[in-house]
């Protein structure tokens, strides 16, 4: 909404400067988007073209001799519409225009001392001018004076952003009410009385639908359709409305001032002498004044002459009855319609206008007649119209204020400050809400222009915003409760902090393409798909974070950063619910000292180490890393594993990306992991009491066994653990060897075994006898000790 300060100041007294006003307004009424003049060029003067000569060296340029008040000088002008005797806007040499500073110039050998301007050269949209060439001022413009003053463009324009509840601010009068309240000043609405002639209006208005609440009309005869005066054109330009002619301009001006849409018909096109408001017939065709044929239905309100539709009520006029240059007599309408019908019609037909916008949001019912009268008065004054008496109308709107009460106690209890009765009263008086205070309660009569106010909370908002939020003290609510993270939230945080010491946390979009959503995890699930996606690559809520992480790897590798070690904590979504998951994707180098020729790159065992360290830090002990029954989707079948707890609780999986998958996602060799966080949380059993440590020295023995390739290192370790029992306190694989001297399909695994006892120093002989037992039992299973 654009509010020219000149218009606002006509209605309400503003006793502070513009800058303070804007600050006040933004703190007490609505958000201010901008505050500026439509045109801020300084030093322009009104000039008069005294003479025109053809340019000797051009067939389209002219040399104009212009009287600028304090001087007469030549200006070379390329406009096609130059005309002797006309008043123009002159930018003299030195004036700073949006396109640059005006300089004295020699144009094809002829000196030019300024420019005769078109509006767009002043930074004003060309649409406001309406014709090509230089902009002409009316004859009453004074030579040498400021043309912006003449055009009423010297005031600031307040642009405000409205919240959906404040449709009352869609009019300058509405803004004036708020202004009056916040400044505690006075408002004066223009008197709208006008004389009528004895001839009576012969058009009868009626409605056949309840969706038309009120309809006021006037007939104005013998109007002169012409250009509007400069002040009216300037006012409209400041409100982003293109001046057309005096009749259209007046209806637009009154619309912006009052928020009440008006419609002017050519009286002579209403041959039946009656106006009947109806619902359109299903399938009815109607040509709107933009010359487009529209298909109507029975939810559209139409203004008819009884038979033929003349106007799409509240949305757009019809081509047939529109005001033409030849129009002599006007039938003027100010009506009020059901907002829902207007909303539906304008949405369906894609016809949104300043009028439909206001009808949709609800107009001030108490200004319908005022708006009609104001426009009528202006038509009389600016178009020399004669107003007929006894106009027809109907008004089914209850023009009553709504009673809402609020107690002083409620105000103070909600706001946390003790307001005085006078402070509150001043707010309600300022807003022109009739009010009465007795027994601690304000009874407030809320006028029709503020349908947003219906509860005591709404009134409290009025009190606090108009008195100023700066009056509210700052306190902290008392609390006896102890805030804390839940154990699960603390668990997630611990994971984040743990991993963030060596990996980089990322956050990616939850919505992915269908293809990405199903790229990993072969479990059965029902995907969450969005009905109205914005783009094809974001249609489905993801079921795995890995595709998104791979996109991040690709993004970084494309930017010459090959080493990407990332993780994300997010959710997987199915129609059955959401589950928190943790995923990692690792590619490239972990650490390096390149000049020493040392470099550690990501492999399966690095990821496995990360995983086991993480589990260790989270007190997760009872889990197994095992070969999955079926190959994991998207992963290398030989370099991947699943993580299982208890009998068959799946905690997650990890491994190397299948080469085909890596190719598809355009990433270099990458290892990925995905864990179920809530399952993981259930497996975490934080330390309750310490495990006793032995005070006695331990004995370490190293052994190497040659086993078949099919025997895993874990198989070997668990065999040894079964035999050695409790005195074996640690076992570690420290070498793996394959070679011809060992035999085909064989490998040698070297282990370091630590023995200790809680209660005594172990004897070498007892350890040796355990070792011998291990050796002989393993030997029987084909696992031979390597001498």
């Amino acid at each position, binding site marked *: 909404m654009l509010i020219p300060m000149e218009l606002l100041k006509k209605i309400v007294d503003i006793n502070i400067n513009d800058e303070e006003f804007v600050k006040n307004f933004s*703190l007490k009424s609505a*958000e201010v988007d901008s505050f500026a003049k439509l045109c801020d060029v300084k030093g322009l003067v009104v000039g008069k073209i005294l003479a025109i000569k053809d340019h000797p060296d051009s067939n389209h340029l002219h040399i104009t001799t212009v009287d600028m008040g304090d001087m007469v000088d030549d200006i070379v002008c390329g406009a096609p519409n130059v005309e002797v005797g006309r008043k123009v806007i002159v930018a003299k040499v030195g004036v700073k225009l949006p396109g640059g500073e005006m300089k004295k110039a020699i144009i094809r050998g002829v000196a030019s001392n300024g420019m005769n301007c078109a509006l767009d050269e002043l930074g004003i949209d060309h649409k406001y001018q309406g014709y090509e060439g230089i902009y002409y001022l009316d004859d009453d413009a004074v030579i040498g004076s400021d043309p912006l003053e003449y055009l009423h463009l010297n005031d600031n324009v307040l642009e405000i952003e409205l919240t*959906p*509840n404040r449709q009352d601010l869609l009019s300058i009068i509405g803004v004036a009410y708020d202004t009056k309240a916040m400044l505690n000043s006075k408002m004066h609405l223009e008197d709208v009385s006008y004389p009528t002639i004895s001839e009576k209006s012969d058009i009868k208005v009626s409605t056949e639908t309840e969706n038309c609440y009120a309809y006021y009309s006037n007939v104005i005869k013998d109007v002169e359709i012409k250009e509007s005066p400069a002040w009216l054109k300037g006012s409209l330009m400041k409100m982003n409305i293109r001046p057309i002619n005096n009749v259209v301009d007046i209806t637009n001006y009154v619309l912006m001032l009052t928020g009440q849409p008006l419609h002017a018909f050519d009286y002579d096109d209403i041959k039946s002498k009656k106006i009947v408001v109806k619902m359109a017939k299903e399938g009815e065709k109607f040509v709107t004044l933009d010359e487009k044929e529209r298909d109507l239905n029975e939810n559209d309100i139409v203004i008819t002459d009884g038979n033929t539709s003349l106007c799409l009520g509240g949305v757009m006029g019809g081509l047939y009855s529109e005001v033409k240059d030849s129009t002599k007599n006007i039938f003027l309408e100010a009506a009020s319609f059901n907002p829902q019908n207007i909303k539906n019609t304008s949405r369906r037909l894609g016809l949104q206008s300043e009028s439909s916008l206001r009808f949709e*949001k609800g107009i001030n019912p108490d200004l319908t007649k005022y708006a009609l009268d104001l426009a009528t008065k202006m038509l009389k004054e600016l178009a020399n119209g004669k107003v007929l008496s006894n106009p027809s109308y109907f008004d089914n709107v209850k023009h009553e204020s709504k009673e809402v009460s609020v107690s002083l106690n409620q105000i103070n*209890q*909600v*706001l*946390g*400050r003790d307001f005085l009765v006078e402070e509150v009263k001043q707010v309600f008086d300022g807003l022109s809400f009739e009010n009465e205070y007795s027994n601690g309660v304000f009874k407030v009569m809320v006028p029709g222009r503020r349908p947003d106010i219906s509860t005591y*909370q*709404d009134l*409290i*908002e009025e009190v*606090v*915003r108009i008195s100023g*939020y700066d009056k*509210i*003290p*700052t*306190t*902290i*609510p008392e609390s*006896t*409760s102890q*805030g804390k*993270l*839940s154990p699960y*939230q603390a668990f997630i945080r611990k994971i*984040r902090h743990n991993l*963030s*010491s*060596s*990996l*980089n*946390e*990322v*956050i990616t*979009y*939850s*919505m992915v393409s269908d293809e990405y959503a199903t790229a990993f995890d072969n479990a059965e699930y029902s995907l969450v*798909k*969005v*009905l*109205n996606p*914005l783009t094809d690559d*974001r249609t489905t*809520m993801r079921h795995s974070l890995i595709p998104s992480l791979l996109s991040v790897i690709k*993004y*970084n590798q494309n930017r010459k*950063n090959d080493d990407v070690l*990332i993780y994300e904590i997010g*959710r997987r*979504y199915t129609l059955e619910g959401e589950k928190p998951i943790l995923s990692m994707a690792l590619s490239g*180098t*972990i*650490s*390096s*000292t390149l*000049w020493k020729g040392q470099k550690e790159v990501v492999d399966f065992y690095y990821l496995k180490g990360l995983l086991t360290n993480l589990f260790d830090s989270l007190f997760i002990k009872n889990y197994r890393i095992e070969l999955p029954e079926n190959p994991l989707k998207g992963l290398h079948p030989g370099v991947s594993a699943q993580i299982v707890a208890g009998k068959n609780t799946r905690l997650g999986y990890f491994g190397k990306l299948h080469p085909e998958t890596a190719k598809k996602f355009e990433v270099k060799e990458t290892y990925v992991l995905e864990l179920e966080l809530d399952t993981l949380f259930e497996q975490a059993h934080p330390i309750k009491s310490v495990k006793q440590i032995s005070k006695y020295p331990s004995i370490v023995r190293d052994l190497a066994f040659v086993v078949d390739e099919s025997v895993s290192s874990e198989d070997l370790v668990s065999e040894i653990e079964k035999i050695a029992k409790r005195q074996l306190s640690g076992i570690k694989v420290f070498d793996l060897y394959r070679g011809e001297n060992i035999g085909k399909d064989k490998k040698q695994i070297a282990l370091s075994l630590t023995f200790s006892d809680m209660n005594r120093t172990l004897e070498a002989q007892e350890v040796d006898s355990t070792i011998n037992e291990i050796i002989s039992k393993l030997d029987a299973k084909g696992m031979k000790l390597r001498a």
Partner: protein
Amino acid sequence: MSDKFKALEAYEDLKQKLEAKLSNTSLTLQSLQELRQEYLGKKGPIQELMGEMKNLSPEEKPSFGQKINALKTLVSDLIESKKKELEERQVQEKLEKERIDITLPGKEVNTGSIHVLSKVIEEVEDLFIGMGYEVKDGPEVEYDEYNFRLLNIPKDHPARAMQDTFYVDVERLLRTQTSAAQAHTMLEYGGNKDVRIICPGKAYRRDEDDATHSHQFTQIEGLVVTKDVTMSDLKGTLLKMAQSLFGEDREIRLRPSYFPFTEPSIEVDVSCFKCHGKGCSMCKDTGWIEILGAGMVNNNVLSMCGYDPKKYQGFAFGVGVERIAMLKYGIDDIRSLYANDLRLLKQFKA
């Protein structure tokens, strides 16, 4: 004086000869050991002189013995001190040899980082936990009921147009605000327990991604419902949050706004932390930066969520984590928060 003594005298210049040998710069620990053998060994000159003892008279023996011993000590000391000197030199040489170029680069290890959105969330969580709040989250695929209706946004409410929504089916949508979780909590608490929660999480709106809009974003919504919490409590709480996020000397100001779930509703600005109120590009020359929306909980929301508005009142606020992160760290494009360029990520150490 006997010949024996003369021999002894003659051998005394042996000291000078030894000193000469010891001053030879090519002397090594090895050759010093040989020298010791030569002088003090069984076949050495001192031992040889000792052999003469048996030929001396009892009277001569004591003084001869003393002299020999003195000579022996002298020789031994000379060699010993030389040995020490050589050993020290050897250590010095070894250290010198081991000298490295300390300017060569150290081992490069990937440094981890925490995402800036997580960082801001944790910061805000910690602040509010300190004030007695709990942290709550709910589903992102939410029912219309919780996301809209219970928050006083019935179908066809104009506020729905403010939040263009991704729908999943007739009833379900991607939540447009984490306040959906607030409705869950209030209903869970059953209308007779104080509520003091913040709800951080992801939310979605059907906005085309550009420098300032993102179809996915992060919100932290706060809600307090008690018998007597006031707007001044809200103002004090928000001031504390603004100061904790943007600096202790920050101020806030409140402006009227509109949200269906609060009444009165406010927008909150923080005094510009770049220009300290003088006006700059960051605050668009106003000295103030908009950071969040808030208000007193609308009675309709309280009743629909099981709280009697005659007994309870509340305040609520919602802050965009991306906006806070962008303002705080000078990030100018919201999309860069989701692009995860390592060069940006690694600047936020855990």
